[in-house]
């Protein structure tokens, strides 16, 4: 496990039991079973996992919202269970469900929260930056999902925290909101803030995270930078890189004429009418032969796509492809 030079958050062997639950004959349920992670300043650390993996519980233990059953947590060097107002002022939290009163209006609400801090950020700047000025007269209950998320982010940032927790920050975001929120997260990271977020979306992790912990079944199953995780397993099976090339061309091509051009082990098929894929350990010479075959046949593909492994493949390899 990596240890950043100045971790804002260190979790070692976190355990959280909930219950007793009637569904388990009055037994306790262990929802987090040994999660360990470190998050540094000026970095985005992502907890990636399916719903129910234990991401939110881990975050809530770190925020002091839930008491842990075992393990240790240091948030800015302190135990969050014993945290006072001074520590809470240095930590911003955006909850999964927002946590904003439905009848409140954005500006008075932000001003109210700002009042809890000695050195809050200027509200006007924050509001303008997140585009909240465009809906500042509506009550929270009338806001769209993306607007609510932006307001919740503003509420988490208004105290100018050193550490920012974001629980599923892209949930319910429309493309514009997503752009605004992701740009801001990157900027805050660059300004030195330590950002810890959870997500079940590979795309979020791939776009935002400097370091990713994959959580499954209440404990970490893999970690690394996005690049490291992508390498993990890329040469895993006998050192061979599986790739998929797909192209659209007129339907009903005689694939036998192409088979001689391609190497053994490659699979060429027409999945739907006019939609073809080649999968296997594709090498540059295969591409040359494929395009030569197109030239022979007088084919100009309408589209062409070459894909290596995505973080999603890595994630599914690690945490299994079963539906839970």
């Amino acid at each position, binding site marked *: 496990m990596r240890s950043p030079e100045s971790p804002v958050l260190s979790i070692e062997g976190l355990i959280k039991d909930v219950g007793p639950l009637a569904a388990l004959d009055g037994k306790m349920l262990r929802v987090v079973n040994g999660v360990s992670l470190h998050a540094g300043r000026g970095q985005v650390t992502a907890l990636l996992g399916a719903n129910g993996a234990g991401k939110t519980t881990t975050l809530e233990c770190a*925020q*002091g*919202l839930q008491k842990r059953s075992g393990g240790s947590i240091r948030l800015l060097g302190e135990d969050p269970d014993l945290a*006072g*107002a*001074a520590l*809470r*002022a*240095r*930590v911003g*939290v955006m*909850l999964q*469900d*927002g*946590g*904003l*009163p*439905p*009848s*409140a209006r954005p500006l008075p609400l932000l001003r*109210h*929260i700002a*009042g*809890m*801090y*000695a*050195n809050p*950020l*200027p509200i006007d*700047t*924050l509001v*303008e*930056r*997140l*585009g909240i000025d465009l809906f500042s007269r509506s009550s929270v209950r009338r806001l769209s999902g993306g607007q609510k998320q932006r307001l919740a982010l503003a*509420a988490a940032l208004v*105290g*100018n*925290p*050193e550490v920012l927790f974001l629980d599923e920050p892209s949930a319910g975001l429309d493309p514009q909101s997503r752009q*605004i929120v992701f*740009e*801001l997260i990157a*900027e*805050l990271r*660059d*300004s030195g803030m330590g950002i810890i977020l959870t997500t079940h979306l590979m795309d979020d992790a791939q776009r935002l995270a400097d370091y990713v912990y994959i959580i499954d079944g209440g404990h970490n199953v893999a970690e690394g930078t996005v690049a490291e995780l992508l390498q993990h397993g890329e040469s895993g099976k006998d050192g061979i890189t599986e790739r998929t090339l797909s192209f659209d061309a007129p339907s009903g091509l005689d694939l036998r004429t192409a088979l001689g051009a391609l190497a053994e082990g490659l699979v060429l098929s027409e999945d739907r009418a006019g939609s073809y894929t080649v999968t296997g350990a594709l090498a540059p010479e295969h591409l040359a032969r494929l395009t030569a075959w197109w030239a022979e046949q007088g084919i100009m593909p309408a589209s062409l796509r070459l894909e290596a492994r995505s973080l999603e493949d890595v994630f599914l390899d690690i945490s299994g492809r079963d539906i839970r």
Partner: protein
Amino acid sequence: MSNSSAADLASAGSAPSAPAPLFRRILLQGKYETLAMIRNGEQLILAVILPLLALFGLTVTPLLDGLGAPRVDIAVPGILALCAMSTAFTGQGIATGFDRRYGVLRFLSTTPLGRTGLIAGKILAVLAVLALQLAVVGAVAAVLGWRPDPGGWLPGLAMLVLGAAAFTALGLLVAGTVRPEATLAITNLLWILLGALGGIVVPAVRLPAVASDLAHFLPSGALGEAMREAFLHGTFALPQLSVLLLWTVVPGAAAVRWFKWN
């Protein structure tokens, strides 16, 4: 969203993050919750309109005749007790129940306000709204001819605050343990039941026998009786004081133990 403001945000917060002083945080939360309660229409009906209607009802009907004092003098202390039940139990209970549902309690407890600041703010809001109710009901009552014992204000206000504490503890206990819809039903139903038969506005001696016996041990009956003792005779009602203390300590401890924040 102009690009010029992009850099501002990161550089704007050069001062280290720090909490505002505790006193200011609680005062702010108290003010915020007070305004939220006053702006809520249903809340206002429960807190002011219904108690005033009850006051008119009790002064124009002979229900309180023959108890040794003018109708209005017997009615007003009970109406003030009813106000405390409206605000501390039903109003604060419902507001807290829905705040819990929407995650507001969890979010605010991650800010410098914290859980204790949040509770302190709620208590402050209950006291502030109660003061407004006292002013309105007191003014209307004065017009109706209320002439309280001047020595009644000290024990009366003390009992009113203690009663508000008991009903706040009960309201938070309900709000923190059941769904907000259930909190809404329970606190409204109890408000009607205790208001009519709990010895709060109609003295226990005028209630049906079963309700009359029970009322002495209910927070409603104890507060109503203590308020009448104070404003009619200028005395501290010690038996009622101990009943109210019990209704503050036990539900308060239960709320600390069983209140679920999420």
